């Protein structure tokens, strides 16, 4: 929509407008659920399992119940409700058995946090500890203990997912395009290798927190730090069989989400405590340690890729096997598998493709949505693999990518055609390669290498992602005019820090022709008063809610023109408007001010027409289709956002210590709505990507205990960990159906940072790392050809519990020769 308008004619879109919520956050006035206290509020704490897998033999809550100040105690035996976004496989509290370290087995609500904690300590649980299945690669095997023996009886979304009963496979997504065996037969080289990355945590600065009151008549009010108010409401009502109008979800400011707050998590348990406590509001806030183990994380991945290329370097066939470690419950992980399955090759044209993507249950904290929805994880494998294939061919990695990248006329893995307006990954690649001076060292760089002895390496990686969402995803916007001519905008899309309230205000200001300060986008969300939005995920918000805002503006204008045509005694087609009011095009003195029609117009004699001016816009994803369950073909993508990163690293060739001198990141965003906001998203996402690349990752012992459940040993990047130089680049090939040509880019900055680093390190000191995170010790081991440390699941203290671990699964063979 309006994608052809050039930046020079746009008044608000394209400007670095100040976000409207910055002030209250800067003064400390902004209220988060963490800050809220309600009258009569109780505090909740949970009893958590110390075991990864165990039968619950008994739970004795009598001492807890007897403690003065305790108002409710719950165990799984009283709660017969099952939850699950896609596969309904989780009880609110563990029932009969625990499936992961940190799983909640009992909960208490009491007058104070201290009493609640004491009560939890008084609950006695007797377990029969069972041997856990920890590595997803072991969970695949015949005879592995079953995390969900009753998988065959669970409800699930049949159109989209395929769980395999009597296994640990929660989902199997297939994609079959063309004929891979034929493609391999015609290939000059076949390159095969396996790549790994561990689970990581989102680490929002505000941990999960909710306050729930289960009032009389089963009217429930939920205040929650969450990304998707309607998902919370709908899933809640589904679980408890309540009509939607019974439940109200309110979201004030949110202290970060990154996907961890995309669904429903602690609200049902908190609600049950409130119900048991006679309806008093109950607040539960996860401690940071609980955030790491009670709350979900990002699934780990093992990705096996086999690529066949022609002599010229064209990819002819690719077989991709993804093994996702979903942990104990399916949650979003099955959809991560599906969304990654259809995007599995990265932004390349693969004429013959075969994907098998599995979601595997293990006895570990479970995976949920995480920025990138699988794409950060699998791009590590793909982009490291592309460098390997290029090396095998003796081809420059940038040239190899350009030869195979998706471009106008290409077909994606699912058979979608790329057009001029889909986006240009090659432009992004060229931009970052130029920015880092790829392929050569400058005179300065050569001197620095000489002076310090640290080797300089340059690497690139490209990326793609489309929103992973249902084909009928929808959203809406309401624009209400105030009696002073300003407008208030309601959307269901939640501002969790990404700045949607600014971007959407700019779009509304642009479409209405108003100044930015006349448009106010309501920041807090309330399912009772805000219009439906599917979820604040998937980088679909700007496009879909932006379009809905434009449609709502046009509806408002239509209504305004109708009233104005009566007032100005002119035909609707002869009207125009500006920031002051509506006027007749050929007689612009004949005008009426907004303030005089905003809530209805009164004639001089007192008669009134019109009424409050409210514009409504609804937008639904168009032309999308479900994927064929056998072939994976279909049209799942609302839009594709492509991008690239280029990294310059410096490595100490003795110790493996390294630093990142520069990163250049480019994205084809269609149209930049707010340059400053975009830059903030790019830098923030990039650093989160560096965190996953350099230092983040869960570490378990052989019994499935999480060994790093706090910041002491689960590190995230600090202000000292940013690259010395950061360049952010926007490419603008308009998205025809995007608002002013824009497409989303919220997740993308995080994707492919890790392989860009891996490729740069490889160029610097010749190390070929296939697992994350990349610590200095990993570089050192690789340089010295020492055994790598697969540090996610440790023997005491290092090693891997995976029984068939083979690290160097690289097979680069000339076709016809073994």
């Amino acid at each position: 929509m309006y994608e052809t308008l050039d930046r020079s004619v746009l008044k608000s879109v394209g400007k670095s407008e100040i976000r409207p919520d910055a002030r209250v956050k800067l003064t400390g006035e902004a209220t988060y659920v963490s800050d809220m206290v309600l009258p009569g509020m109780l505090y909740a704490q949970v009893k958590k399992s110390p075991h990864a897998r165990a039968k619950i033999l008994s739970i004795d809550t009598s001492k807890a119940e007897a403690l003065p100040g305790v108002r409710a105690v719950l165990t799984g035996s009283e709660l017969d409700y099952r939850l699950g976004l896609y596969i309904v496989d989780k009880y609110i509290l563990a029932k009969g058995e625990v499936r992961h370290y940190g799983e909640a087995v009992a909960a208490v609500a009491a007058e104070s946090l201290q009493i609640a904690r004491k009560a939890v300590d008084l609950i006695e649980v007797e377990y029969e500890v069972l041997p856990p299945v920890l590595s997803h690669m072991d969970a695949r095997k015949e005879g592995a203990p079953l995390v969900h023996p009753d998988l065959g009886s669970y409800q699930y979304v049949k159109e989209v997912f395929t769980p395999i009963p009597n296994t640990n496979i929660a989902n199997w997504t297939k994609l079959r395009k063309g004929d891979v065996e034929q493609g391999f037969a015609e290939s000059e080289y076949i390159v095969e290798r396996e790549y790994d990355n561990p689970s990581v945590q989102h680490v929002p600065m505000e941990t999960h927190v909710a306050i729930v009151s289960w009032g009389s008549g089963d009217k429930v009010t939920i205040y929650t730090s969450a990304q998707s108010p309607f998902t919370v409401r709908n899933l809640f009502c589904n679980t408890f069989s309540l009509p939607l109008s019974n439940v109200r979800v309110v979201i004030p400011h949110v202290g970060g989400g990154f996907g961890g707050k995309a669904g429903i998590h602690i609200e049902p348990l908190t609600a049950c405590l409130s119900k048991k406590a006679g309806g008093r509001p109950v607040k539960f806030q996860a401690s940071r340690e609980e955030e790491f183990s009670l709350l979900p994380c990002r699934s780990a991945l093992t990705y096996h890729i086999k690529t066949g290329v022609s002599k010229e370097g064209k990819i002819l066939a690719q077989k991709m096997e993804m093994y996702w470690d979903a942990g104990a419950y399916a949650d979003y992980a099955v959809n991560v598998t599906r969304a990654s399955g259809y995007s599995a090759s990265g932004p390349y044209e693969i004429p013959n493709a075969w994907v098998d993507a599995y979601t595997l249950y293990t006895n570990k904290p479970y995976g949920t949505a995480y920025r990138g929805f699988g794409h950060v994880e699998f791009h590590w494998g793909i982009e490291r693999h592309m460098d390997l294939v290029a090396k095998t061919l003796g081809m420059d990695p940038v040239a190899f990518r350009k030869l195979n990248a998706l471009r106008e006329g290409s077909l994606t893995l699912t058979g979608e055609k790329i057009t001029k307006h889909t986006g240009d990954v090659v432009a992004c690649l060229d931009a970052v390669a130029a920015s880092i001076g790829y392929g050569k060292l400058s005179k300065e760089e050569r001197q620095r290498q000489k002076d310090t002895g640290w080797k300089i390496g340059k690497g690139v990686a490209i990326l793609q992602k489309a929103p992973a969402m249902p084909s009928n995803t929808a959203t809406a916007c309401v624009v209400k005019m105030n009696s002073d001519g300003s407008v208030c905008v309601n959307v269901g899309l939640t501002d969790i820090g990404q700045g949607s309230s600014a971007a959407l205000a700019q779009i509304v200001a642009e479409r209405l022709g108003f100044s930015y300060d006349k448009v106010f986008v309501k920041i807090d969300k309330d399912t009772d008063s805000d219009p439906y939005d599917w979820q604040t995920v998937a980088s679909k918000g700007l496009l879909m809610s932006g379009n809905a805002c434009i449609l709502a503006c046009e509806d408002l204008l239509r209504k305004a023109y109708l009233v104005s045509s009566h007032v100005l005694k002119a035909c609707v087609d002869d009207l125009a408007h500006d920031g002051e009011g509506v006027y007749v095009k050929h007689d612009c003195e004949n005008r009426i001010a907004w303030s005089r029609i905003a809530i209805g117009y009164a004639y001089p004699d007192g008669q009134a027409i019109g009424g409050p001016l409210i514009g409504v816009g609804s937008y639904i994803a168009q032309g999308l289709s479900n994927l064929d369950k056998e072939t994976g073909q279909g049209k799942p993508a609302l839009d594709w956002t492509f991008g690239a990163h280029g990294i310059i690293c410096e490595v100490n060739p003795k110790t493996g210590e390294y630093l990142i001198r520069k990163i250049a990141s480019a994205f084809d965003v269609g149209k930049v709505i707010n340059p400053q906001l975009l830059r903030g998203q790019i830098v923030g996402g990039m650093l989160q990507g560096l965190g996953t690349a350099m230092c983040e990752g869960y570490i378990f012992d052989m019994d499935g205990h999480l060994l790093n459940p706090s910041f002491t040993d689960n590190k995230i990047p600090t202000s000292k960990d940013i690259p010395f130089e950061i360049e952010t680049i926007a490419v603008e090939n308009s998205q025809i159906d995007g608002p002013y040509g824009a497409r989303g880019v919220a997740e993308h900055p995080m994707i492919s940072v890790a392989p860009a680093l891996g490729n740069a390190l490889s160029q610097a000191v010749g190390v070929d790392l296939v697992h994350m995170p990349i610590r200095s010790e990993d570089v050192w081991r690789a340089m010295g050809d020492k055994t790598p440390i697969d540090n996610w699941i440790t023997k005491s203290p290092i090693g891997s519990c995976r029984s068939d671990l083979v690290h160097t699964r690289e097979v680069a063979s000339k076709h016809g020769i073994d």
Partner: protein
Amino acid sequence: MIAEFSYRGPTTESALLELLSANAHQAKLLAGGTDLLVGIRGGVYHPDLLIDLKKIPAYWNLVLQQDLALSIGPAVTINDILGSAEVRKYHPLLCACAKDLASYQIRNRATVVGNIVNASPCSDMAPALLCLDATITIASVRGSREVAIGDFFTGVKKTVLERDEIVTALHIPPSSASAKGVYRKLKRIQGHDLGIVGVAAAIVNGRIRIAVSSAAPTPVATKPLDRSLPMEAILKEVDSIISPISDVRCSKEYRRFMVLEYTKYLLGEVSSC
């Protein structure tokens, strides 16, 4: 805090010693609290009583004597050390170790004495104190005694302190004044982190001292080594005092390698300054 405890802030040393003696088994001394409160929250310590030592004026003393000996009271913070021009001039190794300790906010509270009483093998201040041959004054109702830093640590988070004793001062002897020293700490990120290994290299009275943290049950140091010793011999000495382990942070092989690498590097640096 969820854990319950009471708090007392005696204003004289004799009151503090009495209190400590009467509550030896249930009390812990509170200085900066950056180790203690974390430990209480994490269920590692369960004191019934916290005795705040910060209300005793003499405990804040950071005094450079005429002979350039340095006395550090138990309330002196890491940032107090870094902010002292005198310490920077005459005992720079203390600053070299101090500046890498945690974050600025922590350094405003954490104390030098607290850092060694906590006796973590990862202590950042211990390497400096070991190289500089610090002595420790310990007091209780039963009197006071002096212990050399080399005898202070007895195991992981264990010292010679009895339950009713308090460290009332650290002394750096005049002979260590103007010692040159540098410190380097291997971390998992550039930002604040515990040391994966920490190495201090110093030239004290014309002889080399190397001290290492996070590579043995306690922080350790070589005896004074002759400057004329070849590098292999120095490295052999360092290797003989460390016994690194593998844990979630690092493998023992890499720890050992990095201790020796840092030793080489830091000796070069300290010889030229």
